[in-house]
């Protein structure tokens, strides 16, 4: 699998983190996204007319949608360890995967405005992201009351992997973790997963 990657994009990190936690290797093609905007160059627009990263290629297959990429990589894992077998739990996982990849794109955008010169109003985006992390924190509070520390159940799933980068990186746009104690505890659990890796902005406590 080839990942067209930019190290500082959290959406690319989501894919790298998943591959690492499922013991799969990715061939990384590093794209000069900032400041080069190479993903908007002619050859890249051929791969993804939307002009965005990440892009995943596997043989004839070329994927540009974040959740499609994440589901594909999670299914390539022989053990399929992050895809719940129980159908209700799998549906809950998909529900939170949608939250991570669609709703939380405001957090990705806020970070891009704060760090990478993207256009937008960081204060408005930050306020939206804060509301979403409240929803996550409320949910994780309920989960732990039921003895389930992950978003979809007792075991970590693809949704947790997809959610983690947004929460871990929100300090990059000046949203602190102070107000989200349940998410803080949950994030600590994610950090202990075998194969866990970091990226710039996510401290490695060595």
């Amino acid at each position: 699998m080839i990942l067209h990657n930019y190290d500082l994009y959290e959406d690319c990190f989501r894919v790298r983190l998943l591959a690492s936690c499922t013991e799969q290797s990715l061939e990384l093609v590093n794209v000069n996204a900032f400041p080069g905007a190479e993903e908007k160059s002619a050859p890249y627009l051929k791969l993804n007319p939307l002009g965005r990263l990440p892009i995943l290629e596997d043989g004839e297959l070329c994927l540009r949608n974040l959740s499609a990429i994440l589901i594909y990589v999670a299914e390539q894992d022989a053990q399929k360890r992050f895809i719940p077998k129980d159908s209700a739990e799998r549906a809950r996982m998909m529900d939170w995967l949608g939250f991570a990849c669609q709703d939380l794109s405001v957090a990705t955008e806020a970070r891009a405005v704060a760090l990478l010169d993207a256009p937008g109003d960081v204060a408005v985006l930050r306020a939206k992201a804060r509301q979403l992390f409240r929803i996550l924190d409320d949910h994780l509070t309920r989960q732990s009351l039921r003895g389930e520390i992950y978003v979809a159940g007792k075991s970590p799933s693809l949704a947790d992997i997809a959610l983690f980068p947004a929460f871990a990186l929100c300090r990059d746009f000046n949203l602190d973790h102070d107000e989200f104690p349940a998410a803080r505890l949950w994030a600590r659990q994610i950090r202990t997963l075998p194969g866990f890796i970091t990226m710039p902005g996510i401290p490695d406590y060595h």
Partner: protein
Amino acid sequence: MTQTGSAPSQWVPVALSNMIEAGTSAGTVVNDAEIVVWRDTAGKAHAWEDRCPHRGMKMSFGFVRGDHIACLYHGWEYDTSGTCQYVPAHPELEVPKSICISRYGTTETGGMIWAYTPLGTLEQDSPPDLPALEGVRSVYIDAPVAQVSGALEQHGSTPAGNNETNSNFTTVKLESTVVTVGLQQISEGRCALHIAVPQDTTIATREALLDWCEDLRRSVEQLEAAA
């Protein structure tokens, strides 16, 4: 970092005990003063000014190693007295004792970690006298603490504090359960409630309490937004 000169000396709840695991740290704010709350690996809780004297980095971004907390920037490590013990860039250096972080008086009672504020006040008053309780959740609300207290009174809360220094909690009866609510003023327009219940409280009651917390936050914030 700035402090209101007129703020009375008092014990303020800054976190639920069970939300700060051994070997971890978190940031919080009391009356605009940034505080790092951390627990050493032996289990003792600490509340300090949230600033490394070296470059001003927040200590709450750092990490705990045994009974030391280390800054994320350059790894300067401080012992439980707040004194810097180790500078990784100069491992041979005997660190001057003058490099230290200011500490708050810290205690744990009623399932909460309390800090004696403002910074630099000598501990004079005994901490709130609360029974053994278990934290359910902390809820952060965009409204003045007085307004939240008012909303709690409408729920029939009874201020349990009998003097100024331990007035930062109240109790509310939810069905037959006595719920203890620790009140933390973050800034003029923001506060946190730390919610704790007796250990034998059922899961069903705790779930109802979570609904209650979310409803309270929603209704108070809607009132505040309309004001």
